[in-house]
C-alpha cells in the first residue's frame, strides 16, 4: 500500500474523517488527536468510542461527525465492543464474505480507560485482538464535570478532590497506565502528545503495521478542567513533554525507546503554572507538593532513560 509521506503538506491533502461541526469545546485536545490518528492510517478504519466528551460531542442524532463506521456502546466497554466488531470481521473474512483490509480502533477518555473500562481493556489486550486502543488522557472526568479519575495528576484540584483547607487536591499519584499496558506483553505500547504531531502520526502508522493488540496513551489538554486559556492546548501539550511530565516513548516487543528527549528538561512548574487546577500548589504551605511532584516526574524520567539505554544496548 502506498504510504503518505510524513509531512504536513501531504497529510493535509488527505480527507479529514472527523468533520468540523462537531461540538467539542474550542481548544480541546481530543479532536486534534483523533484527526491525526485518522490521517495516519492508510487503511479504512472502524472505530468504537467509550462514552465521554468525544462521543457525546461527535454524534448527536441525527448528525454524525464521523466519516468512518463508528460505534458507541457504553462507558466501560469500548475495548470489548471493538473486540466484537473485529471478531465478526475475522469470521466473515475466513468465510470469504469480506476481503478488504480494515483496521480497528477504540477511543476512550481516561475515565473510560484507566477506571471503569480497565477490565474490558485488559481483557481485549489479553485476547490478542488486532486493534489499536487510544486513550485521550485529559486527567479527569471532564465530560461529567471534572471529577477525579485515577489518571488525575498528583495535587490537581478537581470537583471531587477539591483543594480545600485540609486536603490540598489529589493526594495520590496517577496510575501509570502505559506501563501497565506494556506489562500485558502486547506487541506495541506508546505514549504520545498532539504537540508532537509527527511523533504521534509515526506511532500510529507503526501500530497499524503490527498485528495484534496495541495501546497508545495520548495527552489531551482540556481547558475546562485544566483551567487554562482556550488557545493554549498545543503549548500545554508541548510543556507536558518538555518538562517530562508526559514523556514520549514506545515499547515495542518489550524494548523501550524514548522517542523525544528534550534538549533541556524544563522544570515541572512551567507545565503547572498556566493551569488553574494547580494554582493552590504555589501557596507557600504547599511547596512540599511541588517538590514531591517534581520528584515523581524525575523518577519516572530516569527510569525511562534507563530502559531506553537498555533497549539500545540489547539492539547492539
Amino acid at each position: 500500500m502506498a504510504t503518505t509521506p510524513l509531512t504536513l503538506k501531504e497529510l493535509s491533502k488527505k480527507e479529514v474523517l472527523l468533520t468540523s461541526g462537531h461540538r467539542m469545546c474550542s481548544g480541546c485536545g481530543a479532536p486534534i488527536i483523533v484527526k491525526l490518528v485518522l490521517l495516519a492510517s492508510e487503511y479504512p478504519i472502524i472505530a468504537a468510542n467509550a462514552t465521554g466528551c468525544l462521543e457525546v460531542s461527535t454524534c448527536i442524532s441525527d448528525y454524525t461527525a464521523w466519516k468512518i463506521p463508528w460505534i458507541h456502546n457504553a462507558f466501560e466497554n469500548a475495548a470489548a465492543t471493538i473486540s466484537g466488531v473485529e471478531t465478526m470481521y475475522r469470521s466473515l473474512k475466513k468465510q470469504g464474505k469480506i476481503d478488504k483490509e480494515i483496521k480497528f480502533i477504540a477511543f476512550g477518555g481516561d475515565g473510560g480507560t484507566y477506571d471503569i473500562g480497565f477490565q474490558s481493556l485488559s481483557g481485549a489486550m489479553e485476547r490478542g485482538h488486532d486493534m489499536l486502543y487510544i486513550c485521550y488522557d485529559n486527567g479527569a472526568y471532564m465530560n461529567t464535570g471534572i471529577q477525579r479519575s485515577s489518571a488525575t495528576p498528583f495535587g490537581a484540584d478537581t470537583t471531587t478532590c477539591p483543594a480545600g483547607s485540609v486536603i490540598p487536591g489529589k493526594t495520590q499519584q496517577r496510575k501509570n497506565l502505559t506501563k501497565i499496558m506494556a506489562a500485558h506483553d502486547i506487541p506495541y505500547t506508546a505514549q504520545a502528545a498532539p504537540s508532537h504531531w509527527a511523533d504521534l502520526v509515526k506511532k500510529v502508522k507503526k501500530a497499524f503495521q503490527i498485528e495484534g493488540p496495541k495501546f497508545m496513551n495520548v495527552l489531551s489538554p482540556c481547558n475546562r478542567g485544566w483551567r487554562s486559556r482556550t488557545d493554549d492546548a498545543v503549548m500545554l501539550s508541548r510543556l507536558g513533554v518538555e518538562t517530562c511530565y508526559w514523556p514520549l516513548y514506545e515499547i515495542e516487543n518489550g524494548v523501550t525507546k524514548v522517542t523525544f528527549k528534550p534538549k533541556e528538561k524544563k522544570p515541572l512548574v512551567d507545565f503547572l503554572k498556566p493551569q488553574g487546577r494547580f494554582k493552590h500548589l504555589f501557596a507557600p504551605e504547599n511547596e512540599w507538593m511541588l517538590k514531591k511532584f517534581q520528584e515523581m516526574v524525575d523518577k519516572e524520567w530516569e527510569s525511562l532513560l534507563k530502559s531506553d539505554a537498555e533497549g539500545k544496548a540489547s539492539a547492539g
Partner: protein
Amino acid sequence: MSKVVAVTGNEAVANALRQVNPDVSSAYPITPATDIMQRFTSFVSNGQVKTEMILVESEHSAMSGCVGASAAGGRVMTATSSQGLALMWEELFIASGSRLPIVMALVNRALSAPLNIHGDHSDGMGARDCGWIQLWSENAQEAYDNTIQAFRIAEHMDIRLPVMVCLDGFIISHSIERIEYLEDEEVKNFVGEFQLLNPLLDIEHPVSYGPLILPDYYMEYRRAHAEVMSKVPNVVVDIAKDFEKISGRKYGLFETYRLDDAEIGVVILNSAAGTSKDVIDEFRDRGIKAGLLKPRVFRPFPYEEIGNSLKHLKAVCVLDRADAFGASYGPLFADIAASLYPYKEKPVLTNKIYGLGGRDYLPEHAELALNELVEIAKTGKVKTFREYIGVRE
C-alpha cells in the same frame, strides 16, 4: 427426518446453536449456563461450526462483544444466567435499543444474596422490561425448538430485536430428557442466510451506532421500539407455523391445557407447568373442570389473547417463581391481572410464590392451589390472595 436423543437441556440448546452455526459468540462462564458454552466451544475446537469465539473477562463484556459483533453485521449468540444477566443489565438495553438481533439462552436461576445458584425466575423477571423478546421453555425440547425459532424472530426484517430463550436452571438445564432433533440441513434452511442491515463492516457506507439523543427525539425512538414490540406476536406465530412444517410441533404465543371448558385454572411458566398438567389430569378424572395456561412469549406479553383465553374462568391461580419485592403480587400475576382488567366478567385471581432458589415444585403444591380454586369457585370467597407456598413458617 428427526432423530430421538436423550440429552440435557443445555446439550439440546448447544446442539441447536451448532445447527444454527452463528458467525460470532461472545461468552463468559456463569453456572448453570456455562455447560452450553462448554459444549459449543468443543464444536468450535473440532471445526463443526464456523463460529469465532470471544472468550471475554466478564458478562458485561460478553454482551458488549455481542453488541459490537452484531452491529458489525452477522449472526451472534451467547448464553448466561442470574448474576451474569444482572451484570449485563446495562448492555441488555443497549442491544435492544440499537435493534441488534442477538440470541441469548438464559438458564434461569436465583439472584444473590444469599448466593444460591439454583433455578428460579428472578433473573429473567428482572430483565423483562429491557426491550428484549422473551421466549420461555417448559422442557429441553421447547428450549431446543425456541432457540432455533429465536434466530428467525430476532432477525426478521420487521423486528430486528434481541431474543432471550429462557429455560429452568438445573431442573431443565442439567436433567436428561428424551427430545427430537431436527436434521442439520433442516435447521440451516429454516434459519436461512443472515440478512444484513446497516453493518459497520460496510466501509463504503459508513454508519454511526449509539448516538446521543436528547429530549427532542428520545421519546420518538422509545415509541418506535414499543411499536416494533407490538409487531412481534404475528411474526412469532408465522414462524411457529413454518417450524411446525419441519418439526410437527405446534407453538403459539402461549400454551393452553384443557382450558377451553375449564372453570378453574392455573397460570405457570416453564418446567413447573409439566407437573401441574399431571395434577390437572387427576382433577379432571375427578370431574373437576381444571385447566392451565403457560405463557411462551412473555415479552411482548400477549395481553389480548391471554385475557381472552382466561376471561371465562371462575377462578385462576397465578404461580410465580420470582417475587417482586414491595409490589403487591409476583411479576407474572401482575401481567395476568392486567390482561383481564378490561373484561367486566372475569375470574377471581390468586397468586402463589413458589420454588425460589431451586425449591422443588411438587404435585401437592398444584393440588393446594387447585383445591383452593375449587372452593373459591363454589363460594366466591378468597382466604388468601397472595402467599408463599412450600416454605417453612
